[in-house]
């Protein structure tokens, strides 16, 4: 099971990098979203996908699932949602103000 999820994370990373290398602003946003999803899946596999009991201390239960990866992913998801929404607004405003969404044309010159 870990193996499949790892491949999925790899596919997400590859798609993300492909999108990040494009020049269109919206594609860059999509790339960054996919990148964060890849990273989250990656944490999940690193914590091992065991099918144990809930991590609550009771007598007679030995096999617990590791609760930490989920806590990390949850925190990270919240952060990446926040940044994604900021990024969408920022990209929209930038495209409007500068009248282009092509990164090539968003370079600018030295003294301004």
């Amino acid at each position: 099971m870990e193996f499949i999820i790892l491949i999925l994370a790899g596919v997400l990373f590859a798609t993300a990098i492909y999108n990040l290398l494009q020049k269109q602003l919206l594609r860059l946003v999509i790339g960054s979203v996919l990148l964060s999803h890849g990273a989250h899946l990656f944490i999940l596999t690193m914590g091992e996908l065991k099918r144990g009991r809930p991590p609550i201390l009771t007598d007679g239960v030995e096999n617990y699932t590791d609760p930490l990866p989920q806590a990390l992913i949850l925190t990270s998801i919240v952060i990446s949602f926040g940044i994604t929404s900021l990024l969408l607004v920022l990209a929209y405003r930038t495209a409007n103000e500068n009248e282009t969404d092509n990164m090539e044309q968003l370079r600018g010159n030295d003294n301004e």
Partner: protein
Amino acid sequence: MSNLAVLPIIIPLLAGIILAFFPKQLSLVRTLTKIFVIGNLVIACYTAWQVFNQGAIILETGDWAAPYGIIIVADGLSILLVLTTNIVAAACAFYAPYSLPDKKERFYFYSFFFFLISGVSGAFLTGDLFNMFVFFEVLLMASYALIVLGGDKVQLRESVKYVFINLFSSMLFVTAIAFVYGTLGTINMAQIAQRVQEVEQQGILTTIGILLFFVFATKAALFPLYYWMPKSYVVPNPVISALFGALLTKVGIYAIIRVFSLIFVHKINLTHETFIWIAGLSMIFGIIGALSTNNIKLIIAYNIIPAIGFILMGLGVFNQEAISGSIYYLIHDMLIKTSLFLLVGTIAYAAGTSDLRKFSGLIHYYPVLGWMLFVSGFVLAGIPPFSGFIGKLLLLTGALSNEEIAIVIIALLTSLLILYSIMKIFIKGFWGEKNESFEYKPIKGRIAPVAVLLAISIFMGIGAEFIYPSIESISAYLLDPENYINAVMKE
């Protein structure tokens, strides 16, 4: 265990929230800001005094014992940096009302300012790798808002790049943390250090270390990962540039110092030797950038890169003197970069342009400003008796005792060129004929915060005897990871 360690994080956070309730009453907000920064500074001073007298303060949040819960560690290095952060913040808070237009101040400038301080202090104080990522995000979120505050065409354009680069490196940070958790089964920095020590940093661990270095080097703007930095630091208002230049890159280099003096210290030939080369290249390329431009703000922004190079050089040499030099230089650079950014912002305001070719003869109207820039240039380049000299002296003696001749030569040449790049502003902008048609703009309030910063950095140079013992004890503490591990794990 003491709650003192968490106060430098909590107070700015609360201040930011409180100020968000009435952004329109500017005079009230400004007064409260000043009260909060001074209060925070006093508490940071008190905490630092406690730490230097009684050893590291460790707070286990929610009473979860060390390797399980999130811990806040205030040891010498982190509390010293928190103290400097608060000095910088106070200077910027007093400068802000003169520099920012009222409209921008009403757009929650002070709230974001306090969130930034909170995030920076948190990143310095945390003892948990994932928690460090969270605090990085807190400060980055605040910085995203600050860099685009006002929403000019240029600001929007540069902030998009800034956000993307930081988002990319943050996601690599999360991936690196996943690797750490997968291989070592913990994210508590003391326990990571312990486990790396047990297996003597074999196999994949060095790779993870380099991945973490890549992430922090992007945030610290080291060669070759500095390309995003100079332009995005000059587009916002001078006071925001000063905060960024003083704090954000320094958080990255602090993380590098922490990780590579505590955790990955068993393959020094590989990692730390590489750092020396990266430091040398950062110095060369940074100073080339500073010399290549006529925009006074860009000159200062490019000067951040060689400074980070100097700090990394001390870590790369990795002996007691060099690490002391790094820490000294780190503190010195935070103070002097703030004052330079504020000075250059004032000059650009007074001259009406930041293009060096378009103004000259300012000294006839602003003598104090000109001489302050002159002194700042001396401090930055490390002319005795100012603070830069002590840091560089320690770095160079440390490097010479390890026989790293090449980096010493590069460092000395870079220092000369740094002096030249600042003096260029002084010679071209301040010297020259009096321009009769010049419109004089009063700048009185903007001078005072800078004067205080310069006074502190002159004291750091002349009064080095008072400061050096504590810096030396910090570097001795850093060179032996056992100190940190024992303090946190309580064995």
